């Protein structure tokens, strides 16, 4: 049986480096986040950092607000809006793609992916040039003698930036699920009396749900934690949770930065678990 064991050992060995790596560089670092979050500058245990996130308040015009809860709420709101827009814009294009001739599909997918290879900071910068009040968009509107619009520095601009930067992450997973879907299913549904909307609602959408979920995850997560887009396109007016973490890091408050990161991580993990559960229950039903 020696050689057999050797074989099993080889399989273990193939997994070994990754197992060790995942332990050292995925799991242990998360423990460090928790460790920093629950200690003060002298590494003594404290819950102050966590408490500060939930209790810190600020007063403006006599109204008391919870600083970090408000920041978190704003981040969540903008991220959800961006995700929904990505989904609404991306779903049809994914469908169109998956039903195009193969050659067209290939070209379009390549086109969609090209912007991902351009540096994300530079892309965001280019949006500034487009959106600012004297920017390309408004020059164009003036040319058509339309009223110029004020976008830069609004929540709208931040949302545009997020949608733009993460849009391909929504299209690609939905497309890959739809491309595998049997076209005959649609024909069967039509044959059985569904109209176009019925086909979408009762056949295409349920089947594409796994793609939708991974697309939503891949857009929501980075947009909730971004800290560059808001600085550039929001004119520095929209302080998001990512900005808060980066701000605390730059101000050398590592422990509080870790606390914010820890809370964000816990909230996201719970959120993802719930979403996965929902997806599973849908799949089971």
């Amino acid at each position, binding site marked *: *049986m*020696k*050689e*057999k064991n050797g*074989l099993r050992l080889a399989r273990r060995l193939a997994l070994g480096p990754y197992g060790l790596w995942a332990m050292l560089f995925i799991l242990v670092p998360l423990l460090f986040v928790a460790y920093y979050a629950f200690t003060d500058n002298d590494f003594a245990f404290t819950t102050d950092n966590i408490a500060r996130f939930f209790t810190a308040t600020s007063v403006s015009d006599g109204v008391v607000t919870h600083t970090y809860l408000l920041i978190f709420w704003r981040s969540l709101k903008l991220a959800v809006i961006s995700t929904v827009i990505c989904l609404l814009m991306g779903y049809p294009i994914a469908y169109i793609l998956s039903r195009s001739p193969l050659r067209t599909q290939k070209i379009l997918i390549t086109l969609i992916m090209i912007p991902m290879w351009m540096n994300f900071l530079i892309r965001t910068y280019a949006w500034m040039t487009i959106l600012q009040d004297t920017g390309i968009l408004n020059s164009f509107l003036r040319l058509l003698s339309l009223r110029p619009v004020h976008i830069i520095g609004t929540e709208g601009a931040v949302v545009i930036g997020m949608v733009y930067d993460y849009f391909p992450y929504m299209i690609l997973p939905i497309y890959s699920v739809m491309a595998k879907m049997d076209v005959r299913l649609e024909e069967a549904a039509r044959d059985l009396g569904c109209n176009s909307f019925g086909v979408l609602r009762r056949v295409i959408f349920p089947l594409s749900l796994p793609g939708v979920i991974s697309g939503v995850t891949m857009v929501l997560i980075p947009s909730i934690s971004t800290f560059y887009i808001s600085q550039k396109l929001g004119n520095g007016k929209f302080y998001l949770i990512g900005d808060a973490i980066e701000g605390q890091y730059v101000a050398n408050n590592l422990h509080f930065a870790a606390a914010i990161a820890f809370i964000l991580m816990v909230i996201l993990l719970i959120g993802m678990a719930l979403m996965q559960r929902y997806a599973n229950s849908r799949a089971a039903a």
Partner: protein
Amino acid sequence: MRKIIELKNVSKAFDGQTVLDNVSLDIYDNEFLTLLGPSGCGKTTTLRIIAGFESPDSGSLSFLGEDILSLPPHRRNVNTVFQRYALFPHLNVFENIAFPLREKKVPQDEIRGKVDEMLRLVALTGFEKRSVTSLSGGQQQRVAIARALISRPKVLLLDEPLAALDLKLRKDMQQELKNIQKATGITFVFVTHDQEEALSMSDTVVVMSEGRIQQIGTPIDIYNEPRNAFVADFIGESNILSGIMLQDRLVRFSGRDFPCVDEGFARNEPVDVVIRPEDVVIVPKGQLRGTVTSVTFLGVHYEIIVDIGGFKWMIQTTGFADVGDEIGIYVDPENIHIMKKSEYSGLFGDYSSFSNEFDELSDAESEAEP
């Protein structure tokens, strides 16, 4: 005849579920041996143990008298034809067949010659450069056989190789496999769940069920002298009735005494009585009488179900009877087979719930399973 492979008391369980239970089996030189049984009976596992892909929990396996359990697959002198052929999609026909020789670093000229020879054997000359994915099922099958035979193994293992082919092709391939086996003189161990295939091709049939060997014998022995109700039912159709052996050559079932040819049972021993449907003759008066409940025309003969005292018999006959007719039957003493009671007694042989469609469905099911 020389014994090539010997399995002794081999047992194997997956996740606590027994798959092989104390199996012992000898395989001889130049033999066409078939492992026959429904899916999950352990036949494929037996094959994989011989090939070296699984190791048994207990028991021994020897090859020409030498224990080979510790040898990995690539060092065993057996080759396998896989169920779905397992041809390498990134290699063409020639390279697939040449694969084992390339592993052994055989010189190119020699490879050329041997591959040509194999292609001739499986009638695929001229297909060398074709991609294996462009071949039909039958052609892929031949490539798989050529590939497995090229290094002249002592034993060729075939795991349901014909399951994916359509009926006509399957018949042709059965004949061809048999021819190849004769031409090469290599021992074939063939796994199938199709009893007709097993009976028509094999020198020896091993009937398996629930991880145990039920009977080993020539196709004729197995058909004529099934050892228990399971074998009787699995090999062809059988009416199996519960009876009592009154004395030698006299058995009682269905409330009547019948003369038979079996001896050697204890007096008044409970037994299973097997009567093949084609051995039942319809006569005006007969030993037993009953009412016809269904008639199916099958081309060569009719299949008639008769209710006799609540037990439904199957009869295959060229004569005709209509549903509702009351008929008499007669069974020749030669055709009454007596078996000892076994755990399978009472499970098979009554056609109360029988329908052809159901039979086909369950066949298809067992084929679909790996």
